[in-house]
């Protein structure tokens, strides 16, 4: 892994402000721990289990179990969560959650105040790319992390383009650091 990463979709250049590369999963774990109000947004690709998408949805559940991070399931992802016995995910349209995260006066799913860190995974690359761009430019106190296997330059932080094993290992490390298993 190097500190330089290229957008997974070649043409999806971000501009001068590009995501920091998560060179070590510990960084991500520390950020989640440090965050006062983190949230994770999980897209439908997390329900697929081909080599590209590993077991994202399980990682999301394990992260929730480890640190109680609230989970938003976009599109029909909720169905898979429920199938896996996880009933705490909230179904929302990806744009809707993006739009609310942008709003510093939104008090969150629980009404307890705005989030300060939003993790994303499992959305189509380009869709996540533009939602992250919207948050980068228009949110005020929110940081974003892309946990996808691909470098997404509009996030505040993103994994570089990873091999599947590296990526899985990263999740394991993060969950471990969060005190989960």
């Amino acid at each position: 892994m190097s500190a330089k990463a290229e957008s997974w979709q070649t043409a999806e250049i971000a501009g001068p402000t590009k995501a920091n590369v998560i060179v070590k999963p510990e960084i991500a774990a520390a950020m989640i721990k440090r965050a006062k109000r983190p949230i994770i947004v999980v897209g439908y690709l997390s329900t697929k289990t081909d080599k590209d998408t590993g077991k994202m949805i399980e990682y999301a559940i394990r992260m929730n179990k480890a640190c109680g991070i609230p989970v938003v399931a976009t599109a029909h992802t909720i169905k898979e969560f429920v199938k896996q016995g996880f009933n705490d995910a909230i179904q929302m349209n990806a744009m809707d959650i993006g739009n609310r995260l942008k709003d510093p006066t939104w008090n969150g799913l629980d009404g307890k105040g705005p989030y300060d860190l939003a993790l994303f995974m499992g959305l189509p690359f380009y869709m996540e790319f533009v939602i992250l761009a919207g948050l980068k430019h228009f949110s005020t106190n929110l940081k974003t992390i892309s946990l996808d296997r691909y470098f997404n330059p509009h996030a505040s932080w993103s994994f570089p383009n990873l091999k599947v094993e590296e990526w899985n290992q990263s999740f394991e490390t993060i969950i471990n650091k969060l005190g989960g298993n």
Partner: protein
Amino acid sequence: MAKKGLVVKAKELKTDVAVVKDLQVSIGKLVDDTWEEPMGPTPMPSMTDLRDWDFELLRRYKPFYLPFCDVCCLCTFGKCDLSGDKRGACGLNMAAQQSRIVLLACCIGAATHTAHARHLVHHLIEKHGGDFPLDQGGLNIDVEAPVTRLVCGIKVETLRDMEEALDWAEEQVTHCLSACHTGQEGSNLDFESKAFHAGMADQVGMEIADLAQISVYGFPKADPEAPLVELGFGATDVKKPTILVIGHNVPSSVGIIDYLTKKKMLGQVEVTGICCTAHDLTRYEPSAKVVGPISWQLKYIRSGMADLIMVDEQCIRADTLEEAQKVKTPVIASSPKNCLGLKNRTNDSVDELVNDLVEGKVHGVLILDSDKAGEVAVEAVLKVAPKRNKFSIIPDIEEIKAAGAACSGCNECVRACPNNQPIPEAMKAAAEGDLAPFSEILDNCIGCARCDSACPKDFPLHSFMTKAGEQKLWEEKYLMRSGRGAIQDIEIRNVGGPIVLGEIPGVIAIVGCANYPEGQGAIAEITEEFAKRRYIVVLSGCAAMSVAMVKDENGQTLYEKYPGGFEAGGVLNVGSCVSNPHIAGAAIKIASIFAKRNLRGNYEEIADYIHNRVGAVGLAWGAMSQKAASIASGFWRLGVPVVVGPHGSKYRRMLLGRADKKEDWYVYDARTGDKVYTGPTPEHLFTTAETKEEVIVMMAKLCFRPNDTTKGRSMKLTHYIDLHKRYYGVMPEDIHLFIRNKMDIPITMKPEIQKILEEKGWEETKIPDPTLLKRMVRKRG
């Protein structure tokens, strides 16, 4: 407007004539005073006339901007970094820049349709005279052009009448585009309002274009039983000389058919089409064939089936000439919009042209006379076909295997693929002789060939997958109902009751391009889900083709299984892209036929009516173009929500409601003037759906309207909850927002729902006579 204040009484004119000698009088227009509909407040509105209405919508549906990159590069002050709260050298900020890009897209879209209409009307007047009468659907149609009447306040009865509407539309496009200039508009909301304005002008342009061609070319006229036409690779008779037409503007294709007819050769030459020209070609001559939507271009050309290609305008691959050359197919360009660098041979003789094309002296010619283009196409294809012998560049399996072995696995192809298709893996499998992964890729492929371009080894990857899917491709043979045109007044009248009672829970309009995230099957799935539930499903453009490309176990397409009328469970193909205003027109006619509202120049009132009462929702699952942007924009201003597929997220902004902000969802009760909470109905004006499952659930929800009767609302809720459970596996979280009183609750779900209502602390609300316009309140206070 050019002609305002220039009305001269005949008597006065006589005096003038008597006084001023040796003058010619050029008549602009004869105004028929027998039309009694009173004029509304905003005929031919200026860019600001409907701004208050726009702001009303934008107050509720706020823009969420999704920048594509951090900078603006639209002038030489730039590039400017607009990230965060930075401003460009012109003082612009990111929100304004993104909305400006939306406006620019809508201007390009509106210009495209308006210029298309202008070309068509000009051409048809030249051929048939300005007095040629318009005919949308004979006696079945009273409001001949609802959008034009609503927006422009005029009645169009002849081709010439249309010019006034086009003058207005061109002026508006020019004004709106002007606002994109550096240092013009400074407010993102005003950019949005202007984008709506461009979208509205676009609707006029499209309506004019379709009405003109329906009238002159005798397309199906509001015909629920429009003929079924053949569609698909497999529909082509490979033994015949084959012409492929691509584009949107049909006169040169008509030229082909007319020449074939004149020569009694119809049937001897296969005439096939891609994109909207294919729609209009088959509306003109149902024996012609449709290949498929835009994404079919490259694989069809490379397969070598086309012995001659004629392009007109819009949605044509820019490399058509180069790709055609590879398979030795000559090209005729026939539109000023798309000249391809070819020599203008309009004035050369047919013989010379045919000869040059047949001998391969030139790869293509530009012929700007549609009749001549048609004649040359036919004469040339007859001679080219035997020489070409369907020469194809689709590689054989050995070549693919070798390539698979040589592939470096560099990932450039997949990183270039908009749909992230696993090409490197398919190459590995191909090396082993297994083409199945490539065949799967073809299913999810939009035919863009970016993978080809990106490959450092220059493998023609799109050809590889075409080869892999060959078998399936050649089995593609479907029936599509050809574009029917407008909706009849009687159809509108008949759906009144069922809509009020919820028997028809909504109108689902599926339109637009083929930039699908994962195959085109989704369109048919979505359509059937709603048709089965007795929604009305209206289709146009590429979507209307895609819906035909799935057969059930009996080999039937949805067009065969469901009726073509504007009725419960109807599956209607209205036609090509320019047929979209028939959908808007249906909504508009509901207001005029049920509610007896005047249309003429009465935009705001009608949009308010539609927004609050007509449960219509648009879906552009594969939207990709600037035209799709302006079409959506035309619906937004009418208050009709639009959903796009994932690639549509790249349009740079959504218009999103906030269900959690109660204060956003109040309307006036027109009876009392009270402000009444209505729940988030409809919740968004423009958003992206990630999956087809989400689309289905979301569209059902977006059919809610403040005005729903309890019967209607309870039916709509039934479908929403049912679909939510089915696709999401759980009850929706938000049903309490949509229940106004106990009567709204679907009976079968009563206990379950009442529990939820209690949990949520639900309170009963009133069902208003809803309006966003204070002036519509009847009670004077």
